[in-house]
């Protein structure tokens, strides 16, 4: 098998492991689904009557970011609890494959939550256009790419669950700008290309630096 093929098979094996674990234990995904719907219900009462679709749209992004945080906080729990991360680091595969596998697994969880959240949002609040959905997709890639690396940092620290949102939220601000802009601005394409730029810049950075986060 070629180098790229081998790398891809490592990545998919790692992502499949996470998905299979989730299928067996159901630790994360049901919590994320329930959380995102509950958040939208809370937002209905938090928004004053007549505050408009734009305000509701901002709330959707808060729901997405916090749901992602919920998933990310548990992203490295199986490795941490089982002490499996050392084994993974010692395994004869590129360490960035561990990051990419985790990013894919978290992306699957987040996408599942969004598949529930977006129709629920359209039902409860306001209709969603295609550009807005494209914004959600692009921002989700960025959230998972950056989030899985930060979650690995947080998992190594004493603070764990407390530290992760502190690390993640400042980095998520550009994603929220891009996502909200794609939804409510008439010039959605600019915001979509900005989200694409963010994804590329931070995915490369995370891919290149992940090795330093997990090696002892």
């Amino acid at each position: 098998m070629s180098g790229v093929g081998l790398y891809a098979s490592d990545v998919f094996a790692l992502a499949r492991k996470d998905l299979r674990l989730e299928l067996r234990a159901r630790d994360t995904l049901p919590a994320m689904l329930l959380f995102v719907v509950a958040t939208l219900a809370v937002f209905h009462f938090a928004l004053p009557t007549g505050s408009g679709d734009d305000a509701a749209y901002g709330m959707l992004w808060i729901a997405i970011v916090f749901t992602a945080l919920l998933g990310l906080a548990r992203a490295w729990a199986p490795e941490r609890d089982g002490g499996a991360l050392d084994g993974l680091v010692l395994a004869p595969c590129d360490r960035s494959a561990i990051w990419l596998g985790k990013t894919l697994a978290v992306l699957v969880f987040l996408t599942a939550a969004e598949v529930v959240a977006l129709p629920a949002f359209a039902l409860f609040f306001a209709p969603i256009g295609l550009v807005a959905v494209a914004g959600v997709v692009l921002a989700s890639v960025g959230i998972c790419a950056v989030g899985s690396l930060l979650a690995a940092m947080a998992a190594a620290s004493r603070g764990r669950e407390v530290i992760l949102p502190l690390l993640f939220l400042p980095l998520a601000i550009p994603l929220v700008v891009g996502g909200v802009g794609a939804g409510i601005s008439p010039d959605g394409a600019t915001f979509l290309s900005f989200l694409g730029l963010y994804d590329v810049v931070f995915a490369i950075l995370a891919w290149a630096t992940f090795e330093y986060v997990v090696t002892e």
Partner: protein
Amino acid sequence: MSSRNNTTLLAGGAAALIGLAIVLALLVAPQDANQGVSQRIFYFHVPIALTAYTCFGLGAWKALRLLWVGGERRDIESYSWIHQGTIFGALTLITGSIWAKASWGVWWDWRSNQLVLFLVLFLFYCAYFMLRFSLEEGPRRERISAVYALFGVALIPVSFLAIRLASDFIHPTAFNRHGPQMTNSMFATFCVCWAAITLLAYVMYRVELLGKRTDSNLRELRELLS
């Protein structure tokens, strides 16, 4: 010992230069026709902001060197630069806020892109300290801190773009494509202030580094004794 003497000398120089900068900015530079006396805070606000960027950049550079070639001292250097950057970032927020009150009548204005950017950076680098102090001391902490510091310099342009996209642009622009928008004596004052603040940051960095090194030397000695 010579490094300590140098630092004392540099500190004296920084104090003198800051004094000169204050005199120039408050008494010598001409009054701005539009903004009046409140414009004078610009001579400190902008150099402080530029110095904060420089500190964050140098912190990231040391972090990159740490990941590239290793070396425990680079971790302390990176940390010290980021510490200075956060101090000057907080000062930027304070001086910017004062300026906003004087020229727009409010302490905070979300339309001021630079201020919002500094708020994002300030939050980001505060999290750096939270992360750092929550990790066990050792090579892993050095590397994780370094990676996070590198994310910081990537965040600066990306956030800048994001905030630019998110709002209209009303922050007064001191520099544009046609060069600095000020008279010669104002520009000279600005340069002196910039030099003074940069030197101050460097002295603070040196002092902190000295403290950290003394600290680690002391710890080594104590371990040897016990």
